[in-house]
Each structure stands twice: as C-alpha cells, then as structure tokens.
C-alpha cells in the first residue's frame, strides 16, 4: 500500500511538474514550494490549507501581483508520509525556481525534512509557516531557517490544560498518533500538566494512517479504565473522529479536546454523518483548540475578506488532486492558509522592495504587521513565530462556534 501510494505520488509529481513547467518558466512568477497531504486520510488538511492560501494569492495576483510578478505554489503530495516529504523537499530545494518552502503540513513530515534545510542542497532557502505546532522547527539548529506563524502545540496544550484545570478537570488522558506529532503534543500536555503538578492519567496510541472506519475501541477501553475527567485527542481528523465515536459509544461522556491540526470541519462532517446514520449525537462536549481567530467574526477585516474571497472565487485544489474531494466553504485550516498567504505576501513585498537584503533579515524586521486579525504579527532575530494566541471553539447545532471565557463553566465539575 505504501509502495502504491509512493508510486501514485511520484506519478502525480511528474504530472504536476510537467503541467507547471511552462508557467514557472516565466521568471516573473514567484514560486513557493509546498509539500502536503493531498491524498490519504489527511488530505483535507493539505487541500484546505492550499485553497486558503491560494484564495489570497489569487486575489493578489488578480490585482497585479507583487510588482507584476505573480505568486504561485508548486504543490507536491507527500500523503503525510515523512519519507515522501523528504523526497519532495529535496526536489523543491533543487528547483531553482522555487523561492522558498511554504505551507507544509504535519509534524512528522516536517520533523523529518528539517535537517535538509541545513544541507548544501537548501542554498539558504527558508521554510515558512508549516501547519504544525511541533517543537523541532522552533529549536536549534533550525531556528534560523524556519519561520512559524501559528502558536506551538505547547502553547495550545498549556492553554487547554489551564482551562480544564480552571473548571476542575484535573484527570486528563491523552489519545495520540504514535509519531512525532503525537509525541510532541504528548510532551506538551505533560509539560503543561507539570506546571499544575499533575501528570497524565492515561494514554493510548494509534498508528498513523488510521481511517474513520478503523475501530478505536481498544484505545477507548485503555483510557476509560483510568476514568479521566477530560481527554485530549491528538491525530488526524479521521482517527480522532473514530475515537470520539467509539468513546461516545462506550459511554465516555467527558469532554474531548482536539487540536487545531485536527481539521475541525472535516472531523465534524464525519461525526455528523456517522451520528445521523445511527441517530446519535457525537458532537456534544467537543472542544477544539485553534491558533487562528474565528473566521466568521465580522469585526475582523481578514475574516471578512477571507469569506468574501472564498465565496466569490472559491479556489480549486491543486491540479490533478482533489478528485472526488468536496471542499469546505470556509474552515480554520483554510483561514490559516489564508493568513499564511497574507503574511507571506507582506514578506514578499518587503523582499521585493529590498532585494539586496537577505530574506531572513527582511522577515526578522517585520514588526506589528496587521494582518487584519485581533493581534499584530511581529518577527525578530530571536522570534521566528508570528502568533502566540490560542482560541477555543466548540460545536453548537453542528456548527463550530468560539467558546467565550464564561462558557467554560458548563464543563466545570
């Protein structure tokens, strides 16, 4: 299966390269290299991230681009497989047209490709805004080559644990994907709990690649045995949805928190569908941590533009991918992609203005950039992460809504 996937990815890559070649041929276009899951169980992340980014880039390109130069994304599929991500990265690094790496998806994939950035092959190419809150790219020796926009998993977990602790839920268990991503979040949760002098009461893993059809009853059983007061589910949206379904089926009523990475909309869609088929509500007591604000918040200019762009010119999935994929109208992932694109466009404009200045210095010089959200974005030599804020959402009437601070009380014990 793995071989087949690789083969399919290779074919897709070959095709995409063939298709993109004439357009990248024009030296005027700015090409951003992207490797993400466009196939497989996590393809919703890659596709939505791409669509969000492309919504803004298309908007920029329609308005003349950056001094006439259009911004394009060279998208390669790694199917959320680290090895394939490494191959894709190498290919992108070798490609002279690729300006920088942008919009990667996944911790394990990113963690594995990071060392490439310090090789000769990288030729100083920087790595922008991967969709992961993992620690490695925020640490030595990659800090100089990597710029993050979103808050780290540690920050997400610290915020979540703080909230749970406030409502009296101190017995916390974790269900996580047994790879670098899961381990990273697991580590984050443990660190957060340690600040409250607590530790995990239970943990269970699943193997990366599990689908919604897979049974998570075993993991549910392992965790339920510890009688947790809250569960944190870390993984792909299909695996998390499967876990939630099985946990609820097993009578586990405690709140289950999911990370931003989970792809809330995709997850919700699966749960609603499964719940309606068995006439059950799987969407109760679900908490999602978000690293971007609510895209439906009309007070935010970015959210307003985003929704307008998404409705007006709904971006297509990358060529030759997304067959049979039903895109979301909006979503936190695509909004994150949109914000990534906004910040990236700002950086590209700055760089275009001062081409002689190294890109890293340009980025490190960004201070209080208003991307149209509730906070400004600043970078610095010691600050390669643009945002630090964590938001919480929950499901109300099959819709994802923000949790107001006072609303936490409903989960208090």
């Amino acid at each position, binding site marked *: 299966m793995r071989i087949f996937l690789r083969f399919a990815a290779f074919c897709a890559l070959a095709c995409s390269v063939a298709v993109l070649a004439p357009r990248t041929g024009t030296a005027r276009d700015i090409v951003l290299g992207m490797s993400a899951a466009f196939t497989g169980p996590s393809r919703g992340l890659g596709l939505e991230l791409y669509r969000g980014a492309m919504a803004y880039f298309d908007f920029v390109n329609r308005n003349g681009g950056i001094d006439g130069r259009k911004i394009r994304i060279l998208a390669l599929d790694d199917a959320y497989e*680290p090895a394939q991500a490494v191959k894709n990265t190498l290919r992108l690094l070798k490609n002279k047209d690729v300006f920088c790496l942008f919009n990667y998806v996944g911790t394990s994939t990113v963690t*594995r490709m990071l060392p490439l950035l310090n090789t000769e092959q990288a030729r100083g190419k920087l790595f922008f805004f991967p969709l992961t809150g993992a*620690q*490695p790219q925020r640490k030595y020796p990659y800090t100089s080559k990597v710029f993050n926009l979103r808050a780290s998993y540690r920050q997400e977990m610290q915020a979540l644990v703080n909230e749970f602790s406030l409502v009296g839920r101190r017995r916390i268990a974790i269900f996580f994907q*047994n790879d*670098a991503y899961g*381990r990273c979040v697991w580590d984050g949760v443990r660190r957060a709990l340690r600040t409250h002098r607590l530790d995990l009461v239970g943990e269970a893993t*699943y193997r990366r690649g599990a689908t919604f059809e897979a049974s998570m009853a*075993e993991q549910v059983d392992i965790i339920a045995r510890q009688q947790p007061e809250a569960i944190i589910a870390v993984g792909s949206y299909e695996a998390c949805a499967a876990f939630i379904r099985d946990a609820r089926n097993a009578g586990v009523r405690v709140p289950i928190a999911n990370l931003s990475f989970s792809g809330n909309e995709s997850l919700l869609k699966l749960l609603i569908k499964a719940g309606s088929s068995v006439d059950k509500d799987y969407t109760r007591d679900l908490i999602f941590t978000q690293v971007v604000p609510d895209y439906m918040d009309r007070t935010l200019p970015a959210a307003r533009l985003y929704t307008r762009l998404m409705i007006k010119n709904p971006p297509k999935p990358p060529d030759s991918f997304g067959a049979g994929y039903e895109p979301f109208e909006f979503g936190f992932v695509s909004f994150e992609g949109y914000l990534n694109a906004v910040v990236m466009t700002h950086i590209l404009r700055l760089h275009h203005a001062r081409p002689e200045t190294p890109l890293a210095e340009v980025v490190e010089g960004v201070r209080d950039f208003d991307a149209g959200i509730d906070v400004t974005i600043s970078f610095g030599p010691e600050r390669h992460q643009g945002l630090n804020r964590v938001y919480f959402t929950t499901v109300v009437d099959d819709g994802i809504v923000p949790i107001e601070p006072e609303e936490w009380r409903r989960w208090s014990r």
Partner: protein
Amino acid sequence: MVTMRPMTGIFKRTFILVFCVFCVIAVLTSGMAAYFLYKRMVEEFRSKGVAIAVSIAEGGWDVLLHRDAATVQSTIDNFLDIEGVVYVYVVDARQDILAHTFVPARPESLQHGYPHSEYDISVRNITVESIGSVMEISAPILEGAGGHVHVGMDRGLLNAYFWKVFRNMQLVLGVVFAVCVVLLYFMVRKISRPLTELSDYAAQLAQRDFSGEISIDSKDELGLLARTMQNMAHELSALFSEMHEEVAEATKEVRTSLSYQSAIIDNLADGLLVTDRDGRITLLNPAMREFYALQGIDCTGTKAKHYFPAELARLVAAAQPQEGGTVTAEVPLSDNRTGKALASPIWLEEANGQCLGTVILVRDITHEKALDRLKTDFISTVSHELRTPMTSVLGFAKIIHKKLERDVFPHLDRGDDKTVRAVTQVEDNIGIIVSEAERLTVLINDVLDIAKMESGKAQWRDKLLSMADVVEHSVRSVQGVCREKGLRIETEIEKNLPMVFGDRGRLVQVVLNLLSNAIKFMDEGVIVCRVRRHGDTILTSIADQGVGILADELPLIFEKFKQVGDTLTEKPKGTGLGLPICKQIVTRHKGEIWAESIVGMGSTFHFTLPVARDFKADGSAPGENEDIFCWDEDDALGQEGSAMLVESMDTGQEIQPLILVVDDDPSLGKYLKQLFREEGFRVLVARNGRQALKMASKHLPNLITMDLMMPEMDGKTAIRCLRSNPFTRHIPILVVTALSDTEETGGNVALLKPVDADHLLETANILLRDHDVSRSCIVVGERADFEFDDGLTVFCPSRITFCPPHEIWDHVQEGFKGFVFMPHELADELDLAGLSRQSGVQVLILPEASTDYK
C-alpha cells in the same frame, strides 16, 4: 502415483523403506539447515538490535538531552520499519518514558523499569503480552546518564522464518524425491516387466499349460532364467505325458479289477452290507437288497438302522469293538425268511489299526432252518415214539423174566430134558431181549442227546470246575466195573491245576465215555488217566492197552455210528455214539479231542480244555450261575463221617435197591430207615441237602426221599442240584414234606406229611420195584392237558383211567382201589384228606412237570 501393476512386494517394500529413509533424511536435513539459519538469524537479530539501540543512543544524544520528544519519536519511528523490530522505546535516567512506538499502549510488563546494566548493552529474551516472544536489547545513553534505549526484536519472526526455511527445504526435497520416484518407477517397470512375464509363465506351468513361450531374450540373468524355465517346461511336459500314459494304464487295470469285484459282489448269493464307522451304509449288493426288499432305493450314506431290522443294526454296532473277531447272529429277512448274518470289522492294515467299518454277510438260511427243524422234530418224535414202547417192552420182558423165574420155573419138572432145554432157551432168549432192549434204550438216549446238542437245544450249566475233580469222580464211578474185569486204573494228576469253565456233568460224561471205551476194549492191563497243564489248556489223556485202532480208521472214530472193527462179524458193544458225543461236548467247550493209537499196543485219547481266563483261580464266582453251589467238596467231605451206609442184605442174590433218606429230623429219619429196612431196602440217611448231594453222587441210590425244610441246603435246592448232575438226574425223588406247595420242587412224586407207612412203602415200591404193579390208576384231569411222565407209564402200564375231578368220588364209591394221581393245581379243589382215608386208595400229587429234566 501411477498404479503400479508390476509393483511387486519387494519393490513396494523397498519403496516404503526408501520413502521412510528419505523422510527421515529430509526432516533432519531441513531441520538442521533451518536450525543453523535460525541460530545465525538470532545472532543477526541480536547484532541488528544492538546496532539500532546503539545508533539511537549514540546518534541522538544531543536531541535526547534536549528532551525533544518529537525528534526522538521521529528517530525511533525510522527504525521501526527495519525488519524484526517490533518496538523501540526510550526512557530517561529516571526511567520516565521519552518516546515509544507501542500501539495502542505500552504493554504492562514494560511499564516498569527492570534491573539492567547501567553502562553496558544488555540483551534479554522476554515475553510481552500482545507481541509474543521478544529479544530486547538495551543500550545506555551517555553511560546511562541520559537514559536507555530499548529495542525489541521479534523472535516470533525468527520462528516463522525457521519454519519457512524448513518448509521450503521440505518442498524442494519433496520435489526431488518425486522426480526420483518417477524415475525409479520407470526403472522398476523395466525390471519387473520380464519378472511378471516369468511369473505368468510359471503360473501357466503350474496349470500344466506347457504351450507358452517367453519372449525375453536378453543376455542378462533374467534371460538366463527364462531359458532355464523353458527347458524345465519341456522336461515337465515330457514327464507329464509319460505319467498320463501310466496313469491311464493303471486306471484301466483298476477298472478291470473293479468290475471283476463288483461282478463278484453283485452275483454273490449272500447279502453283503458294508458300513462305515458311524454305521452308515457304504455298499449294498443286489442280494442284500433282495433280502430286505430295498430294490431301487439308494441307501448309501444313511444309517443302517433306517433300513434294516434292529438285530442287524445291533450287529453293525457290535462288530466294531471286536478286534479281528466276527459276530454272528440270526436276523429276520423280508417275507418271513431267516438269515444268518456274519459281521466282521474292517481294519486298516497298519499298526495300531483303525476300524474303518463293518462288513456283514447275510445268508438266507430259511431253508436250512426248516430242514434242521424237520430233522430235529423227526428225531425227537421218532425217539420219543420208540422210547415209549421200548419201556413197555423192557418192563414186560423183565417182569416176564421175573415171573418165570419166581413162579413158573420152580414148578417145572427139572427132570425132563426137553423142559430143561426149553427153560434154558427161554431164559437165554429173555436175557437177550432184556439186554438188547437196554442197548436200544441207551442208543435212543444217545441219539436224543447228540441231536439236542447238534441242534443247540442242549442245556449247559457252565461254571468253574476242576478237571482233576472230574477225572477222579469218573474214575471212582468205573472202579467197580474195572475190578470185575480185573483191570487197574491209575491216575496222574498235576498239582495246582488251574480251573476250567464248563458243564461238569457233561465233562464227566466225556471222561466216563472214554474210560468205558477203554474198559470195553481191554481184557487186561492198566488204564492211565493223566491230567496236566499244556500251555493255556488243560490236557486230559486216557491211555489204554487194548487192541488199538488202525491208522486209517483214526480220523473216523469221532464220526457218528462208526465203530472200529468189523461190525458184521463182531458183535458191537455200544451205540457208536459215545465218541461223537464226546467230540460235541469238547468242541462246545472250545477244546479239542483226538486219539493216538498203535495197533496191538493200545490207544490214547486226549482232549484239551482252555484254562478259565476271566475268573479267579479259586473259582469261587458266586452269582455267576443262578444255581446254588451244589458240589462244595470240602463241606461235603467234612460231613462225610456222619453219613451212614447200612448194608442190609450182604449176601443176597440180588442187591437190594438203595434208598437215600434225607431228613433233618433224626427221629423221622430213624423211623423211615426202619420202615424201609423192614421192607428189605438198603437205607442211607442224610441230615441236610448238601450231605445228600454228596452221598447221592457217591452211592447213586435208587430212590431218594427228600424233606423240603432243612438247614444249610433246603430240599428244593438239593433237588435242582441232583437234577443237574447227569449221574443223579435219573434217580427218582420222593418228596416227603409238610409243605403244601410242593409244586416246582422237581421231585417225581410228592407225599404230604404225616406220612402213611403203607402209602409210603407202596409208593416207594412203585418207584423202585418193577413187580406187582397190579393196581389201577386214576388220573384226575383231561388226557389232553396232561403230559405223561415216563415213570407213570411204567407202574401203570395198562389201566390208566382219566376222569374229571368231580367224578373221582363216584369211582371211589364204586370200589376203586389203586392210585389217584392229580396235578397239584387240582389238589385244592378236592378233599384230599377224605380221599386218603379211603382204604386202598393212594393219592399222589403230581408236581408240575419240569421240562428241563424230562
């Protein structure tokens, strides 16, 4: 596998053996190979695990120290793809987990730390739930300060690998074996085809088909075998045809002889029946079928008793145990015929012979029987008819002689020559009549005797006896005659002779006959009687010194009516039946009799009797004979002293008749003695039956009066003993008894006590003396149902009147004087006492006639 028709036992066994050996080899080889590979793999796994653990521990120590769980996880995830690695986990120095690869959770058994080397790489084999057997390699990070890396290698994989290698090896070896078997099959077929052909050919030979040919002409051993077999077949063929001819010839001979035999059997006038051991019929000739009206019935195989009368069936059974002996019997045939059957067993000729069955020959003797009966009837009738008138002739001749002597001659004038001559002539003539009549009587008796013996009607009273005793007795009997003739008799008797089994009376008769022959033909000299043992027989010889017998005549002397000498010129002395009777008696006792003689020197007669085998030497065999032991010598001799012989008239011209009085009552004995002596008889008195027997045989009295109630031996028994002895059987017995049931005692006449003296004397006179028998006789009863006794005709020769019982009184009142005879069965109907009181009337009760002694 292809069905191997030519796969014979040897090949099959070889194949099985090879298969088994191959299996063992295959298992061992693949097992060994797989084991070595397994061992190697274990080493490989170990080194692999060590390499992984070390590479994680050494390679990422900086990452580990930074506690970057995601990087650690990413690193160990890489190693999970390596074959055999089931898990990797990293713990820090506090044994706190840093990262692991377990799904869904770390197994319980690995949750807790275990003692391991802090500084060295350690390898241990453990069993982990839900994973199985695992080889765990632990490597320290920074000498344990940074924690430990644990790598689990799947031993189950090794086992699976082992079995996979084993299976593959087996498969390869199996294929090789299959190819070998196919090759072998074709080779075996190549070898076994000629072998099969040879065996088929051999089978053909076994069925005597010599026409087959073998197509094998190879030069190897098989070809040689084929040629040899063919030669053998030719030899056999020649041999067989020769044998066939011989067999045909022999069969022809057998057939001829068989047809001879069957012709003989079929034409046999006698019936022939052959049965097997179980009495089933195996052969039956036409004559036999005719005898039993079985024509056209197939009887073979069925039991003889189904078709034949019981007598014959018994014969069949009886012949079986008779070793070599034959059994004869008379059997009834169909149509009221009689047959004589002779059955003899068939013995297998080998030693410890086995009885195969019985052969029975049946001869139709109806005709012979009829003739024999006719002859016997003729002889007895003639003899009887002769005897009756002879008694009268002799009786009257004697009476006339007496009357003449007593009443006529004394009154004649002796002076007249003519008268004297007439008297002399009359006396001579009457003497001749008397002697000739006596001779004729003897002759008739002898003829009757021999006729009885020949017809098998003679009565034999066999018992154990001593030949010595017989001879002594006989010699005593003739002693008187010898003395008269001036001859001497010597006896030489061997001591301790065994007993013989026979009729004592008859044997005495033989010896007496021979003795009297010797006396008859001798004028002077000594007669020697010898009795000695000769093998299993007792040989009795009587030698005389008489005229002797010519050698030509010796074989004839035992024939009937043959007397040595010229019967025309010499007056025959005797009947000529003595020796034939002797021969009959001796032969009947399974003995032999013969004579040796030298003319002028004398003759010797020998006869042998077989020693009694089946009895004890002392010869006491009580119950062997229903008779009482009559001649108990010792007993009799012991009592001899008390016997009295009283001579009354020593010097009388005529010896007076001797009467033996037998009575246990001394007074009555005395009375009777006196009574008889006054009448002029000589009297002997015996106290009991045994003594009476002894005295009777010794003195041969003319009359015996017998009491019935006596100690030791009663009268009845004594009478039977007397009657069984040929020397005493003729003695009339007068029963004087108080008993009323005098029937069946065997006496001639019975008188009831108290005895009337006149009555008794009269009766005795009647029985003894032949004079003055002038009284009339009345016999009560019908003539037809009354059998005459000889004695009665003698003393009432002329005037016998028969009257029914109710007329007797009429006769008496008319003045009848004389004897009234009545059968004992009528005695109860008449007033005997009343009759007896009539003067001049004597009542005699006739006992039931005992036919045995008639």
